């Protein structure tokens, strides 16, 4: 029986967390937007914009990190024989939950990874995000213990195993070839980018390690609440500490609430936006990063969730739901509150006996 410190802090989870932190800080130094060296939600949103599926001109860029992450996951899963198809038990629910998680993240201005990177860069507005994220996860654990379930998947052939790597490879070709139908921002966060090879390398490394370590930013807090196990939470803590140290070393640390890069000071909506991300992630079974890992290794439910996240990004920017450094639009506030109510209703009513 394996016991001792490895049970509490598995080295691979700590390593993956630390790599997330260092890559996040380094990619920002290399050219990605400040405190946004890595962000699943922001980068999906940028890709959606690059494909012309939303018209917010400042956030359109075909971020190589996301397709590279998919390929890194596929490589790791293939080597460990974990590339296996599973059906989506409730694809419609997964799609809607994915979309809501994305809107919540774009109201806060970051997924759980960017929330961690923002705090590590001294942005104290991320503290409200952490509080909201934790609160959403706590509510989610109550619903899970009460019996919430999206149903059971069955093993078998699954589209994600073929579709996602093919799409990822196609997007990387577009990154290199730069066809004219791909949009690219000339100003704003979408115009800031690390060198392509650095982004691709970071994505593949993150995907590989995330698949092997099972790192999940929501799962870390959930397992601490549910079974008092810090084995995933140490990954989040490692990411925070590594990014903080890297930011200090790179001269990127700026402490305070005001004038933080790509952030607003609307405290209530930072809290509620991340509460929606936390609760939605609980009902989906993992944070946005984990959804990409699961989908890339063949999980149909996570596959539906990431399409929901892409759709949520398009909707958020087409219909003015996403926050800006100025604040949160009324539409974003309405969808966050409505999304929280919908998640609670789903979590309460959808049960498996």
């Amino acid at each position: 029986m394996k016991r001792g410190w490895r049970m509490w802090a598995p080295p691979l989870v700590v390593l993956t967390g630390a790599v997330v932190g260092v890559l996040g800080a380094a990619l920002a130094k290399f050219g990605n937007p400040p405190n946004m060296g890595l962000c699943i939600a922001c980068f999906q949103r940028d890709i959606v914009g690059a494909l012309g599926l939303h018209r917010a001109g400042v956030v359109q860029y075909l971020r190589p990190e996301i397709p590279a992450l998919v390929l890194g996951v596929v490589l790791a899963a293939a080597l460990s024989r974990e590339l296996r198809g599973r059906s989506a038990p409730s694809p419609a629910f997964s799609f809607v939950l994915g979309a809501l998680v994305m809107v919540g993240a774009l109201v806060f201005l970051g997924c759980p990874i960017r929330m961690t990177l923002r705090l590590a860069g001294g942005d104290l507005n991320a503290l409200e995000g952490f509080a909201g994220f934790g609160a959403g996860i706590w509510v989610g654990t109550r619903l899970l213990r009460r019996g919430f379930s999206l149903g059971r998947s069955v093993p078998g052939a699954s589209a994600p195993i073929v579709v996602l790597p093919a799409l990822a490879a196609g997007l990387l070709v577009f990154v290199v070839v730069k066809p004219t139908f791909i949009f690219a921002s000339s100003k704003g966060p979408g115009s800031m980018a690390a060198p392509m090879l650095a982004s691709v390398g970071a994505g593949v490394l993150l995907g590989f390690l995330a698949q092997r370590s099972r790192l999940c930013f929501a799962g870390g807090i959930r397992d601490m609440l549910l079974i008092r196990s810090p084995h995933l939470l140490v990954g989040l803590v490692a990411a925070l500490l590594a990014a903080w140290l890297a930011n200090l070393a790179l001269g990127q640390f700026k402490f305070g609430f005001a004038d933080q890069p790509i952030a607003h000071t609307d405290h209530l909506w930072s809290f509620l936006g991340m509460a929606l991300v936390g609760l939605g992630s609980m009902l989906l079974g993992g944070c946005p990063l984990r959804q990409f890992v699961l989908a890339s290794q063949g999980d149909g439910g996570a596959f539906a969730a990431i399409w929901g996240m892409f759709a949520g990004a398009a909707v958020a920017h087409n219909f003015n739901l996403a926050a800006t450094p100025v604040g949160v639009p009324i539409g974003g506030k309405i969808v966050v509150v409505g999304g929280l109510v919908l998640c609670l209703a789903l979590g309460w009513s959808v049960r498996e006996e």
Partner: protein
Amino acid sequence: MTDPQLTVDARGSACPLPVVRAKNALENIRQGRVVVLVNDPVAKENVSRLALHMGCSHHCEQEGQGYRITIDKPGGHP
């Protein structure tokens, strides 16, 4: 009550439901055996970790396409 046995079939359930169901089952008995069926390596790792955290002995075996995890809860842990 002596050595009751419960079986939790968590095959096909998404993370963290296998752990939640196993935990609920273990908390509902004073002592005895809980058998958890899963078909995912991550679920196997998570349920095994739960057993360790709850101070229970366990062992895993391959069963078809999945795994059977047998958890023994010792007495004195109500």
